């Protein structure tokens, strides 16, 4: 039996004005377990707290009930008081007789009656309280960043800057991501390579950062502070440590007709290749689907010309196991496929391209060395039509497209239009838009410049059909302001394709038990207050894996994610919330119902041997809650059919006792 002390607070007249505090403390004296009951003007004051500490010592109290303001206000205060008195802090219960009693009821009789009942409920609960100790777990002081685009790069640099080791896993042969493919960046028009490549070099030279390029995460186990991750390093058939990136192998490779992914297939690369001049790591990679040597053992030219001896046709995929304290997801985006949008004739004409392809066409390192030429015939286009919102903002019931706004298209289209008019003033540029959305610093000014200074023709309306005929693209569109249907003979049509999360994100989310929305964007722990954290503890979000973002936003989110990671890694131990679920193994059926409802993946199963009364043994599957991962929602306790699963601090018996106390 507990020895409970009851402390009724007046809160000046806040409580005492509508509740007869004397009557409350008197009434609660006769409750089971109560050995001491008093009231005082301000329980939360130093004098009030001292009064509690003294009473604990004098009456050997094991539990405390404070009838006062909301526990959201002072529960933490009184827990500290209990600790100061030598009690376990979780032996305190609060009866909320201010916000939920004295402040809502005007009549003294009513208020007092209710306060007594709330007090009784708290006493009934505290009688069943047990001392709780928060669990502790060590923190592995290393972070994993999945994805090596600008989001991953920035996150890794910031974490490394704080002194923690970071690994970047990138599935492509080089880091850099989409930003490396861009030409100029809005709204300042500085070149993407000029600002990105120095960062890539920083990453390469930072001794805290390891890059696993051409690699994927294949398995994740563990929990916050203690992730065990397996990384699959795909065989690139080149010894990374020896390759100098000289490119001699590339020059000699006879397989010339492999579509170049980096230029979105608009030109070709070799079977052995370095994606672009500033690639990091700058080492060659052999495409096993294209290499003759790997396919049928005939060739071997690259090995012959490699003076460093880096070519290794026998290289195998390698699996690396590493421990991490925190994981940052930075898996990025891709433009959606235009296959379903062939009213724009993307599959019928080479001169209908996506905006990302347009970036490559205007990029000095691109297939046309930065000259804007039509992919079909290499001629200068004189009339260019940009189409906005292709596949964005579609109805959920529509046959194709995404429901959300892709956010970046309005600005990059303004950039493309402006740059085109700047470089080629003889070009007519039309932009068909539904709305122009330019919230952001200097964004709308940028768009207005495109219209006012560069003479880009913005037309409110949509393109309905593109008909390639001869060497023109007949564009049929509506001009809603003029209430006209326009027919434009264009030389080039550029589609602002919606963006979607990279396809690798979904299986990764499953491995991480991190939640995703219906569009496969990662869900944040709280949309406003915890925007860079996943609800899964220890997993953080950086960049477009969480939602469409431009570069400035991505970089700031990367910084935010890294500061969260640094905050976590700076701790030697993690102290958990002790109010977590736990399963009574004697009653557990191992049925997996609890696991299915756990939003955190905190529940796992193990086979345990039990000795039976008849001295036989029996192996049973039982649930095990990881207290470091459990957040204490209690969903599992209700899903559990046998009642084996219970929640510390809010146990079935405790809540039941409260119900009983309230219902007489």
């Amino acid at each position, binding site marked *: 039996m507990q020895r409970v002390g009851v402390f009724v607070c007046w809160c000046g007249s806040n409580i005492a004005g509508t509740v007869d505090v004397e009557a409350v403390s008197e009434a609660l004296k006769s409750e089971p377990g109560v050995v001491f009951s008093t009231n005082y003007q301000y329980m939360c004051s130093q004098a009030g707290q001292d009064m509690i500490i003294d009473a604990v010592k004098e009456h050997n109290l094991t539990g405390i009930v404070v009838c006062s303001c909301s526990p959201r206000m002072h529960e933490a205060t009184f827990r500290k008081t209990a600790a100061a008195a030598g009690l376990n802090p979780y032996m305190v219960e609060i009866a909320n007789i201010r916000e939920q009693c004295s402040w809502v009821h005007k009549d003294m009789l009513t208020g007092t009656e209710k306060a007594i009942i709330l007090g009784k409920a708290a006493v009934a609960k505290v009688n069943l309280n047990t001392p709780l100790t928060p669990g502790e777990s060590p923190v592995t002081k290393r972070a994993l960043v999945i994805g090596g685009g600008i989001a991953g790069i920035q996150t890794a640099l910031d974490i490394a800057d704080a002194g923690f080791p970071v690994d970047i896993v990138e599935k492509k042969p080089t880091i850099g991501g989409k930003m490396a493919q861009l030409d100029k960046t809005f709204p300042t028009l500085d070149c993407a390579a000029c600002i990105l490549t120095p960062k890539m070099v920083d990453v390469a030279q930072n001794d805290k950062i390891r890059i696993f390029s051409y690699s994927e995460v294949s398995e994740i186990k563990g929990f916050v502070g203690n992730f065990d991750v397996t990384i699959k390093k795909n065989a690139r058939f080149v010894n990374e440590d020896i390759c100098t990136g000289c490119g001699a192998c590339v020059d000699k490779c006879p397989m010339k007709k492999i579509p170049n992914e980096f230029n979105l297939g608009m030109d070709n690369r070799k079977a052995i290749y370095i994606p672009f001049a500033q690639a990091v790591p700058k080492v060659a990679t052999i495409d096993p689907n294209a290499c003759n040597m790997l396919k049928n053992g005939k060739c071997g030219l690259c090995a012959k010309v490699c003076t460093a001896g880096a070519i290794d046709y026998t290289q195998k995929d390698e699996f690396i196991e590493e421990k991490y304290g925190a994981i940052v997801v930075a898996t990025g985006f891709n433009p959606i496929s235009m*296959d*379903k*949008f*062939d*009213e724009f*004739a993307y*599959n*019928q004409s080479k001169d209908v391209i996506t905006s990302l392809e347009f970036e490559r066409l205007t990029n000095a390192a691109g297939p046309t060395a930065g000259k804007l030429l039509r992919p079909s015939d290499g001629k200068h286009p004189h009339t260019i039509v940009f189409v906005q919102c292709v596949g964005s903002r579609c109805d959920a019931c529509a*046959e194709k497209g995404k429901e959300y706004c892709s956010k970046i298209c309005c600005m990059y289209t303004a950039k493309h239009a402006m740059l085109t008019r700047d470089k080629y003033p003889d070009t007519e540029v039309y932009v068909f838009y539904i709305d122009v959305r330019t919230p952001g610093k200097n964004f709308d000014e940028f768009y207005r410049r495109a219209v006012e200074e560069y003479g880009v023709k913005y037309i409110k309306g949509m393109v309905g*059909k*593109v*008909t*390639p*005929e*001869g060497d023109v693209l007949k564009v049929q569109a509506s001009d809603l302001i003029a209430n006209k249907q326009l027919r434009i003979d264009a030389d080039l049509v550029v589609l602002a394709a919606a963006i979607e999360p990279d396809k690798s994100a979904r299986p990764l989310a499953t491995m991480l038990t991190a939640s995703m929305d219906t569009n496969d964007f990662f869900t944040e722990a709280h949309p406003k207050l915890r925007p860079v954290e996943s609800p899964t503890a220890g997993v953080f979000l950086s960049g477009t894996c969480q939602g469409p973002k431009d570069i400035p936003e991505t970089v700031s989110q990367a910084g935010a994610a890294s500061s969260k990671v640094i905050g976590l890694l700076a701790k030697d131990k993690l102290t958990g919330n002790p109010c977590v679920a736990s399963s009574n193994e004697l009653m557990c059926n191992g049925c997996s119902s609890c696991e299915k409802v756990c939003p955190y993946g905190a529940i796992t199963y193990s086979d345990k041997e039990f000795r039976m009364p008849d001295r036989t043994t029996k192996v049973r599957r039982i649930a095990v809650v990881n207290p470091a991962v459990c957040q204490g929602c209690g969903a599992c306790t209700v899903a559990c059919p046998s009642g084996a699963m219970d929640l510390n601090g809010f146990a079935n018996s405790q809540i039941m006792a409260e119900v009983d106390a309230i219902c007489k």
Partner: protein
Amino acid sequence: MKVSYFPGCTLKNKAKELDVYSVKSAEVLGITLEEIENWQCCGGVFTTARDEVATKLSSVRALKYALDKEQPLVTVCSACHNVIKQTNYAMQNDKEFADKVNRYMAEGSYNGETEVYNYLEMLRDMVGFDAVKEKVVNPLKGKKIAAYYGCLLLRPNSVMRMDDPENPTIMEDLIKAMGADPIVYAKRNECCGGYISVESPEAAKRNSNAVIENAKAAGAEMIITACPLCKYNLVKNGADIPVIYFTELLAEALGVKEDTNE
């Protein structure tokens, strides 16, 4: 295999080629088209209005007929196909509408159970283009043929589910199977003008011309279609390359054209 067959009004007079060659070709490919008894005209166009009931009854009756025979229902004409498939879809998905229809159904109630195939779908899904290819005796080598889908075969896609509505391949695949070269052009799924030729022949002419010009610019030597109205509009508006029904070409490739030419 036997299927129920809904020919439609035009196939019995102005578009006999479409009808006769369909039946003959199917026979070669192992499918017997059994014409529905006492079929009534589908009405030519589907009314999307949910409260239009009477105009859709003939389609429901045909569907019910096929159901009772436990056969899929096959149509050739794009218009019939469109009307019947849309009606079937409404019977499946619009309960209020289906209830109204069933009050008129002396034949017993119907709730969209029948599977509706266009002749092209039949070739693709029941026969298979590879099997068609095997049966070809007169390969149409080197012919550059443009498939003209028009609007009715493919749209609305949520109902028709025949092919990608913006980049269809079903007719091109058939052309390939027959040994010819398909010509892909953007206007192949744009409207010819349809019945507007009654109201404003000029508008129909403009639409049809755009289709013909686009096909020619892409190198077409011939246009094939599944729709009598498309054919009428294209021909009437001065197509200077042949416009024929795809079944006529199929019969030729399969070597059964001659015996039907009396």
